């Protein structure tokens, strides 16, 4: 009998202690919860430091996509109008975020680490047509040392079909 009453108090004490704790709810959207470093959110298309796009338009992300949500059209770079250091660049890059299942296969397939799934999880739309992210929405802005694309580049510098890269660090 006494044991049961004690048990009830133990339970109540947990409740009472929690009442004094800081609440776990946060005031979204004023406040935002940090996500884990390997969280898979909305995609980002990256650039090199000099501002050239990492994407070489190979469309392997599109091939890997189980939802067929990525559409890539490639075009050829020229030194007068260069987007990426490779032979080709993505002239069209579209992701239908309503179809995307955030599996990250595109990231895995990418040979130049051009596409990553970012930390942004705020993907809601007022209309379905807003859910299709085009290249300019996905592409990150050029960094402080870089110029935006297209760039005019000297001849004979970008001769490789796949840009030189370090081995992935992680």
């Amino acid at each position, binding site marked *: 009998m006494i044991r049961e009453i004690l048990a009830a108090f133990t339970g109540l004490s947990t409740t009472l202690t929690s009442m004094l704790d800081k609440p776990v709810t946060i005031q979204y959207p004023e406040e935002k919860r940090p996500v884990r470093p390997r969280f898979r959110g909305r995609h980002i298309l990256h650039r090199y430091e000099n501002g050239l796009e990492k994407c070489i338009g190979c469309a392997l992300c*599109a*091939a890997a996509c189980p939802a067929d949500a990525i559409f890539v*059209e*490639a075009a050829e770079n020229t030194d007068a109008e260069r987007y990426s250091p490779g032979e080709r660049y993505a002239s069209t890059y579209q992701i239908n975020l*309503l179809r995307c299942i955030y599996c990250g296969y595109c990231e895995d397939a990418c040979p130049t680490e051009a596409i990553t799934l970012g930390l942004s999880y705020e993907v809601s739309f007022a209309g379905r047509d807003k859910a299709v992210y085009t290249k300019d929405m996905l592409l990150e802005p050029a960094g402080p040392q870089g110029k935006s694309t297209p760039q005019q580049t000297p001849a004979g510098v970008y001769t490789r079909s796949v840009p030189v890269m370090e081995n992935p660090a992680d």
Partner: protein
Amino acid sequence: MVTIYIDGKPYQVDAGQNLLHICLSMGINLPYFCWHPAMGSVGACRQCAVKQFRDENDTRGRLVMACMTPAVEGLRISVQDPQAVEFRASIIEWLMENHPHDCPVCDEGGECHLQDMTVMTGHTYRHYRWKKRTFRNQNLGPFINHEMNRCIQCYRCVRFYRGFAGGRDFDAFSNHNTVYFGRKTDGVLESEFSGNLVEVCPTGVFTDKTFRKHYTRKWDLQTAPSVCVNCSLGCNTTPGERYGQLRRIRNRYNFNVNGYFLCDRGRYGYEFVNSDRRIRQARLRRNREAAFESVAPDEGLQRIKEIVKKSGRTIGIGSPRASLESNFALRTLVGPEHFFSGATVKDHELVTEAIKILRDIPSSMASLHEVETSDAALVLGEDVNNVAPMAAYALRQSVRCKPQAISQKLKISDWDDTAAREAVQDQKGPLYLATIADTRLDDMATRTFHASPQEIARLGFAVAHQISPTAPQPENLDSAALELSKMIAQDLKDAESPVVVSGCSLEEKSILYAAANVVQALRSIGKPARLFLTLPESNSLGLELLEPGSLNQAFAIAREDNVEAAIILENDLYRRSNPALLEAFFKSIPSVIVLDSLDNPTAQKADVLLPAATFAESDGTLVNNESRAQRYFQVFVPQDDIKESWVWLRAIGDALGQEEPGARKTFDGLIADMVKELPFLAPVQEISPASGFRIAGAKIPRQPHRYSGRTSMHANVSVHEPQPPQDPDSPLSFSMEGFLAEPPIEQPPASLIPEFWAPGWNSIQSLNKFQEEVSGPLIGGDPGKRIILPPDPEQAAYFDEIPEPFASRAGELLLAPLYAIYGSEELSIHTPGEAQLTPPLRLEINPRDAQQFNLTGETVLQVSVDSQVFELPLHISASIPEGTAGMICGLPEMPYVALPAWGKVTPKPVNSSTENPG
């Protein structure tokens, strides 16, 4: 047949055949590189190693190369043996040592034989971690991209280019680790078969440069079985589309027709489909002076209805480049008596004559494959390299047939390519070329004969007479020609399966008769001789089988019978007739209705212009030069208001309230009607299953199962995914969904295979899964059926219309037509690369004639034929016979002139204005 044991299982196989051929034919996967089904074995790459055992007690065995080991009774091999497996993986690792890891950007990626073979051997991690060998790449012209770093030194390219295609400007250089395949210097590859390097190369050294301009991944291409429209041979192709644009053409194997290869005109001549000059909307104008305005299709049809209703008579002009169905739909719309051939008057006569000849001897019509395997050939008049390039390829192979006796005597198998070639050395089988001027086949010829069209015909008649004295004999043949005719006759008589190649390109009927006589003569002495006739265009035969009137009759009717309207089907009449005649014709007809895909001078004359679909956007049947009806399927649904011609014509019929016999509403119904009306066309109905055909209840998808971007590619139009277009006309669907072929277990009939693919075989080499036997017919029979069928009628009489000997005329030259592979054909010229390789306008004249006319080097000539006058630069060429002049016909800048014709040639007056020719 012998019994061999592969991994303990007995197989019945052909004795003497190599083990690689056998393994692939039996469905056993065995990796290979240097071997090619059309090029035999050389045993260079060591990739197909298997273990051979002495007898059933032998457990150690030894490694042998499957491609170099013939099958003998009781042979025991193991493909799965661990040592063999390890050996093959180590070979791949070795080959991959210098191969860059650039698959993501390589154009070959996804259809790469090297990728497939690497996966097949199980090799994954390379130990090599040093710098790879690099090369400088060459610019090989507008068709081929060169990326030598990817080379694995299989030597297939140089073997094909030099040994099979007969090119001279491509070779292997250097040695050891730096073997280089290319030209001595940068430059356009000369061979007209260079495009095959793309498919012959097992990796991405040679890739399609036109495809590169609008590159897309192989697995993103929507494909359908198709037929080439750029000459009369009807090679089978696989066009690929993505996002409303035709991206490229690849070869589609057909044992009887093109086999493994295509010519460059066919492979690259597709870009007119994407041309800016496409007609995309219906256009109307109030009168001939007014400008066109684009209208909705219904408005166009309404106008046509008004025109045709009020008119007493409407005539229809068909087209040798439109499908049989479209031509038939026009014929039904206007009535057979008002249906006219859209071919030139001469071509109309010649093809009609060719049909008669073929009907006399249907059992001796040669297919392209039969030309390739014949052991003696006589070419009468045709410059095959420029008129029907794949026939030149076939003839090149034919000269290798007779000397095979030498290697066979040494017990060398035919598939043992290097050994057989070493044994044969430079020996060639008989090939006689009687042409106007030099051809690119001359290096293979036993003898060449350059003469005027009449003299070529006379030589043919003389050969026939030499073979069988009952054949008529040409009078007054000069002694050189007589001597040559005896030599040719002897070689043809000695051959086991001789072939005579001729055709319509010299516009000379008697050449056809001469060719027929030679074949008849050979058959009368019991030789199974064959006749191969090339025709002007992709559906010349199909059009003439519908028995249309000639273009001149159309003009006459228009002049005399107050015709109100003319419907011109996919035809630029300015390529078919004298401009003056055409102006008069258009003037005499109040309403001209034109259906075409590209804007051209005829379309400019239209009062109503309807946008017609090209081959890639329509279903239809083309009848090739040996009367083989072949179906091509719509690859993609065109944008805008473009429709298939037969759909437009049917809609016009509907608008007129024409009584529709049968169910002509559908493609199947149209064919059924056609067969009902012209029963001899029955094979057309049998060449491919009807639209209701399903496998396991499903249609056959045009898109591969890996097709990407489906849910976002149309997002710029609407985010709501549209329903895939429906295809009521064929058993194929515009979708990824449907029956997934799993060769060799289950696959669609050969005529319906949109693309050759098998699990683990992503490259074109997957073909071995679809063939009854490697390099044999496709499983279930090759697509296409001949319309003109055996049995032969009674032996037909010899033709005796022998032309008079050629006599030169004072002050005049006989202008004979020459052809250019790029330029003489109407559609392929819209490919920028082909336009770039088009020869300049010129008149080729023999040096002696030039001397006689006082013409030198850089002169521009004034040429007058009948009432037409042209200005052409002079080109002195020793190979043009005296008294004649060669003129490349069909070039876009040249107005039509009926050749051969006598023309006056004078140097252009110095102060004359530089008006346009004509």
